[in-house]
């Protein structure tokens, strides 16, 4: 009788005709699920490739104002960039000073490549240039024809009666300006200027004159001298001590800053543009690696997020890079670094955590600070006066966790120094990994008082009151440092600039942080 069979089996066997239909349904379902997975994977790919607000690099031509002496490497790089990415780079060559005037007058163009830092500095002071990226170093040398027939080895030889020599105009070209600055410093300029046979508008024309024989010598950049096989450079100690940095700057008025920055990054990439500079005998700087869209990884203490988030977003859009930011308690972040994570930069909640991983980072720059405060319920119903009242029996206290969070460590260190930590006893109800959790617990009413930071209070001042803690240990210094293993040290330096900019400062200050940034070296 059928009852002896398991009912589904009996059904199955009774309706064998349906069997194949069912099997094909399940096969279809299996196939369908595979197809659906492919569709989902494609959608996810599309979603992650199209982050809202991402940069769009236009195909409009870029206009670059370039110091004439740099033509050989820059021309080669620009043509390669055009071939690779289809974006034309229109280059206008001239003396650095002449170009600067052009930029001031015309308010056009995207990039400015000057032969020395001073022009970019002037341009920046005039508000013409935003970011700058260093490319290479160069020094002035005396240039003579091969073999040095006149035996010119010193400045005195140059100025001795029979030698005619040329210099580039100090107001038009970088080399002239640099020589004038160096010699004015030693008081030799006035006499030297009188002996100059001819001032030329660019460094190349000085070299051409020596090559043609219209002068016996000239002062040019060391790399320029090396680009002429018929010429040779004579190094002088007075010039060798002060190499000039060649940098490219993105013009503030550029209508396509992301595209401009991208070319500047290409030019300054150690595996692209800088190779060309190396071939042209420049001493190159430590450039970033080239990537069309660099992927940056930033580790940041969770409490810093209100201060940094908007700045990161703007930086990402302007630079055309992608920043993956991992926000977490600093104890967890440093543990991840010990597990092998090598972020491009680390923004720590306190110096004490940065020093735990100091071997992985370059010198840290302290950007902001924060202070510990005592947060109580609105109106201070318990009548607490200061941190010593936390030992009062019956209070429900929360502290940040002293191993997981920097703030917890600082609070713990302070309470230990005050001799209070061990007296908290049963009052201490919770140690939370981040201060925000404490604020949330306060807001739900499950704690009477917590130690957190001023920046936490800023977000919760409608609901809580804060009491200051007057103790030198109640301070967190929050440093930013670039990872030694980062492939993009220059870009990270620009990120630091962005974080140190006035707009970022305003964001930090409105989020309750104190401003601490001091530029490391003001030229």
């Amino acid at each position: 009788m059928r009852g002896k069979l398991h009912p589904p089996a009996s059904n199955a066997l009774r309706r064998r005709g349906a069997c194949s239909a069912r099997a094909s349904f399940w096969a279809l379902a299996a196939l369908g699920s595979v197809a659906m997975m492919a569709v989902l994977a494609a959608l996810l790919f599309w979603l992650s490739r199209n982050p809202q607000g991402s940069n769009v690099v236009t195909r409009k031509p870029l206009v670059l104002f370039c110091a004439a002496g740099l033509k050989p490497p820059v021309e080669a790089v620009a043509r390669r960039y055009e071939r690779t990415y289809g974006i034309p780079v229109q280059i206008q060559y001239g003396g650095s000073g002449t170009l600067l005037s052009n930029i001031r007058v015309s308010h056009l163009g995207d990039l400015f490549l000057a032969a020395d830092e001073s022009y970019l500095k002037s341009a920046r002071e005039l508000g013409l240039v935003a970011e700058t990226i260093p490319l290479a170093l160069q020094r002035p040398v005396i240039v003579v024809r091969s073999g040095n027939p006149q035996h010119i080895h010193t400045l005195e030889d140059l100025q001795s009666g029979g030698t005619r020599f040329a210099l580039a105009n100090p107001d038009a070209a970088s080399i002239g300006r640099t020589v004038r600055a160096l010699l004015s410093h030693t008081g030799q300029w006035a006499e030297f200027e009188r002996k100059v046979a001819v001032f030329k508008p660019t460094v190349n024309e000085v070299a051409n004159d020596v090559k043609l024989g219209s002068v016996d010598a000239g002062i040019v950049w060391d790399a320029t001298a090396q680009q002429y096989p018929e010429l040779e450079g004579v190094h002088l100690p007075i010039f060798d001590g002060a190499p000039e940095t060649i940098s490219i700057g993105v013009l503030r008025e550029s209508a396509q800053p992301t595209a401009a920055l991208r070319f500047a990054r290409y030019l300054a990439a150690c595996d692209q543009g800088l190779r060309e500079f190396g071939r042209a005998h420049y001493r190159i700087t430590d450039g970033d690696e080239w990537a069309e869209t660099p992927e940056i990884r930033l580790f940041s203490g969770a409490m810093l997020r209100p201060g940094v988030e908007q700045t990161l977003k703007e930086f990402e859009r302007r630079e055309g890079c992608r920043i993956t930011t991992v926000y977490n308690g600093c104890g967890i972040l440093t543990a991840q670094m010990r597990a092998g994570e090598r972020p491009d930069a680390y923004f720590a909640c306190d110096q004490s955590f940065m020093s735990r991983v100091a071997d992985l980072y370059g010198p840290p720059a302290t950007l902001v600070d924060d202070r510990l405060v005592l947060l109580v319920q609105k109106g201070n119903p318990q009548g607490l006066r200061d941190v010593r009242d936390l030992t009062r029996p019956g209070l429900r206290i929360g502290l940040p966790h002293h191993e997981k969070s920097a703030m917890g460590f600082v609070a713990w260190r302070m309470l230990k120094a005050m001799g209070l930590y061990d007296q908290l006893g049963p009052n201490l109800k919770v140690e939370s990994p981040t201060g925000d959790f404490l604020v949330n617990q306060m807001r739900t009413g499950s704690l009477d008082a917590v130690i957190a930071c001023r920046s936490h209070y800023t977000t919760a001042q409608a609901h809580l009151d804060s009491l200051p803690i007057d103790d030198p240990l109640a301070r967190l210094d929050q440093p930013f440092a670039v990872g030694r293993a980062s492939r993009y040290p220059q870009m990270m330096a620009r990120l630091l600039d962005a974080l140190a900019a006035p707009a970022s400062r305003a964001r930090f200050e409105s989020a309750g942080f104190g401003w601490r940034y001091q530029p490391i070296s003001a030229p």
Partner: protein
Amino acid sequence: MKSSDLHAPSPVVQAPPVQARSSADWPFFAALAILSGTYVLLILGMLAADLSFTTPHHLLAALASPEIRFSIKLSLLSCTLTTLLALWVAVPTGYLMSRHEFPGKRFMDAILDIPIVLPPLVIGLSLLILFQTPLGRALQRHVPITYAVPSVILAQFAVACAFAVRTMLVTFDQISPRCEQVALTLGCNRSQAFWRVALPEARRGLLTAGTLAWARALGEFGPILIFSGATRLRTEVLPTTVFLELSIGNIEAAVAVSLIMIVAALAVLTLARGFGLRGPLERVW
């Protein structure tokens, strides 16, 4: 054998509804109602508390934010992909474990429980370390995983799949192998018996495993925070959003996102159950 067949709960045969309750049964039903009611009240109480902490304005503001819209999309897509992947692993694993004896089976059984037992943070950390090994790094040179979308799916999969496997294992355990054996005697091979008999019978379990995996994946947070980071517009899923909003003390927005998550989950689960139990699966049967 037969007695076990009789006692084996069948996923198909419904228990006959209780037609008449004798008056002496009321204390029993009262106890049932009180015990289950307490739990339902607890859940409703939590929802009501959430609602008291937000306003329609906060909900609308949350829905208007591009970050939150992105995290909704990422959550729904990644959970669904994770669920399908989990089922593709869970069905064969459950079937194999339920129907066959092989050396190391007990060991494998224990291994399959590890993701359920481990704290979620540990899973995240383990995944992170795994992808820092030479093999992991080599793989990542071709496909970025850590801190990218694939890491979200992997983190969800690592946990959700364990629950799906458990469910499928119990499901196949509860289905008598007898029908498959009969199918074999009628000329089916193993594969045909699986496709034509075992899988259709396991459809409720399949649905349960799917919904369970989906729900686990949606709620997955700890591993994602460690393994995928909390980058807005990149690896931010809904629980990350809640965390990020909480971490700046914005409880209202955190609650608003939580409510969006609850509504989305209820909608998808109800739809899946309705579709699964009264839709095509049922008709084919």
